[in-house]
C-alpha cells in the first residue's frame, strides 16, 4: 500500500492535493472551537451554501477565475449575517436558514437555466460534495490556497488572546475596551475565507463537518483552550491526510472520506473521554 501511495505521490496533482488539503484542514479547525462555543456553528453552514450560489453565478457569467468572485460575495454575506444576527427582527438562526437555503435553491436554478455544460448534475454534485476539484487544482490555485491559509493561521495567532476573550465573555471584553464588534467581524471574515478555500477540498455541503468535528473531538478530551485548539488542529490535519490517502488508494470520493475520518476520530475521542472519566456534561 505504501508503494501505491509512493507511485501516486510522483504525480504533481496528488502532491498539490495533499499540501492544500493539510493547509485547509489546519485553518478550518482553528476557529471551530470559537464557532461551536459562540453558537455560531450554523454560520459556517449558511456561508457554504452562499458560496455554492456564488459559484453558480460565476459559472453562468463564464468567469475565468471563480475564486475572485466567490470570495468577496461570501465575505460580504458573512458580514451581513453577523449584523442581522445582532440587531434586527429576523433572528440570527432564521436569517442564516433563509440565506443558506435561498442561495442553494437560486444557485441550482441559475445553473439549470443557463446550463453551460452537458453534465449538469455532475457539476452540481462536485460543487456540493467536492468530488474531484481537489485533484484538478492549477498551480496558481494552489499558491492562492497556500497564501490565504498561511494568512489565516498568522491572523489567528496574532489575535488568539482577543478571540479567546471575546468567545468567553463578550460583555467583559467590551467593558475592558476590547473592540468586540471588530473581533466578531474578523472571525466572520476568516470563516468566509476558510469556507471558500475548503470548497475545493470537501465541497460546500460538507464544510461544516471540517470546522466542527475536530473542535468537538478536542473538547471531549482537553481542558484548556490552548490544548483544545492545538489538538483540534493536529487532529484535523491527520484526518484530512488519512482521508485523502485512503480516497486515492481506494478510489472513494475525497470529501466524504475525509469527513468519515473526522467522524471516526470524534467517536474514538468520545470513547476515550468516557474511559478516562472526563465525561462532558
Amino acid at each position, binding site marked *: 500500500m505504501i508503494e501505491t501511495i509512493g507511485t501516486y505521490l510522483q504525480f504533481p496533482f496528488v502532491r498539490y492535493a495533499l499540501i492544500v488539503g493539510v493547509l485547509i484542514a489546519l485553518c478550518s479547525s482553528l476557529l471551530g472551537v470559537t464557532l461551536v462555543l459562540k453558537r455560531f456553528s450554523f454560520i459556517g453552514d449558511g456561508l457554504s451554501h452562499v458560496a455554492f450560489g456564488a459559484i453558480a453565478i460565476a459559472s453562468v457569467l463564464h468567469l475565468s477565475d471563480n475564486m475572485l468572485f466567490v470570495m468577496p460575495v461570501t465575505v460580504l454575506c458573512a458580514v451581513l449575517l453577523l449584523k442581522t444576527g445582532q440587531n434586527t427582527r429576523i433572528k440570527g438562526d432564521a436569517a442564516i436558514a433563509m440565506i443558506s437555503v435561498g442561495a442553494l435553491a437560486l444557485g441550482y436554478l441559475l445553473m439549470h437555466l443557463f446550463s453551460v455544460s452537458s453534465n449538469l448534475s455532475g457539476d452540481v454534485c462536485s460543487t456540493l460534495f467536492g468530488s474531484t476539484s481537489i485533484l484538478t487544482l492549477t498551480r496558481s490555485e494552489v499558491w492562492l490556497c497556500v497564501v490565504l491559509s498561511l494568512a489565516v493561521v498568522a491572523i489567528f495567532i496574532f489575535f488568539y*488572546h482577543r478571540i479567546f476573550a471575546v468567545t*468567553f*465573555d463578550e460583555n*467583559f471584553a*467590551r*467593558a475592558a475596551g476590547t473592540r468586540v464588534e471588530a473581533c466578531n467581524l474578523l472571525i466572520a471574515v476568516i470563516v468566509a475565507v476558510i469556507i471558500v478555500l475548503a470548497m475545493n477540498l470537501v465541497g460546500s455541503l460538507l464544510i461544516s463537518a471540517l470546522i466542527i468535528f475536530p473542535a468537538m473531538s478536542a*473538547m471531549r478530551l482537553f*481542558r*484548556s*483552550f490552548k490544548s483544545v485548539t492545538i489538538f483540534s488542529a493536529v487532529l484535523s490535519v491527520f484526518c484530512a491526510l488519512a482521508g485523502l490517502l485512503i480516497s486515492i488508494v481506494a478510489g472513494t470520493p475525497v470529501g466524504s472520506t475525509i469527513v468519515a475520518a473526522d467522524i471516526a476520530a470524534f467517536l474514538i475521542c468520545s470513547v476515550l473521554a468516557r474511559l478516562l472519566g472526563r465525561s462532558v456534561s
Partner: protein
Amino acid sequence: MALLSCKDLTLGYDGHPVLSDVSFTVSEGDYLCIVGENGSGKSTLMKTILGLQKPLRGTITFGEGLRQNQIGYLPQQTAVQRDFPATVQEIVLSGCQARLGRRPFYSREDKAIARRNLERMELLPLMNRCYRELSGGQQQRVLLARALCAAGKLLVLDEPVAGLDPLVTAEMYSLIRNLNRKDGITVIMVSHDLAAAVQEASHILHVGQHLFFGTREEYLNSDLAGVFFSLKGGEPA
C-alpha cells in the same frame, strides 16, 4: 475628588427612558449597593457606568485618574461559559486584556498580575483545573480574580451571589468586604438582595419609582426602607 460622579442621568433604550434624573457620586473606598426591583433599570445603569451603553442625557465623570476600561467587571454568568474548555489561569489572565494595547500577547508583568490575583482569591491550587468542572462558588471566585486583574481601584459586581447557596453566598460577601475594607478597593454592587445590601454597603442607591441615594444609615431611616422592610416583616438582622 470623587472616583465617579453621575449627574442627572437619564437612561433607556431607543429613546425610551427607563430611569430618569439619577445623580450620585462614589468616592474612593466606598461600597455602593444599587438596589431596586427587576426592570427598574439597575443593569442599564451598570452598563452605562461600564461604557457599554450611552446615557440618553446627563454626564458620567471619572476622577482620581480612573479610566473607564480600568473598572473590574464581574458580569453574570452566561450559558456559553458553563461548558467552556478553559483553565482557571487562562480565564484570569484574560482580565489583563485592557493592558494589551496593540500587543498580541500578554507580557510577563500581565502574568504576574494574574498570578497575584489567583493567590488573592485562593485559586492557586485550582489554577490548571477546567472552569466547567468547578463549583458555582469557585467559578465566581475565578471571575472575581479576573475582574481584579482589570481593576485598579473600582469593582463593578452584577448580582455576584445569584444562584449560590447560603454558605457560599456568605463567603462571597466576606471576600468582597475584605477587598473593600482591607485593600481599599471601591465596590459598586448591583443586587436585589436588600437585606444583604443594607448589611454590607456603606452607601445605597435605590432606583425605580422612588429614587434614593445616601449612606446606609440615611437609607435605614428613610421612608423607602421602612415601607420595604415592614412589607418583608421587620428590620433586617
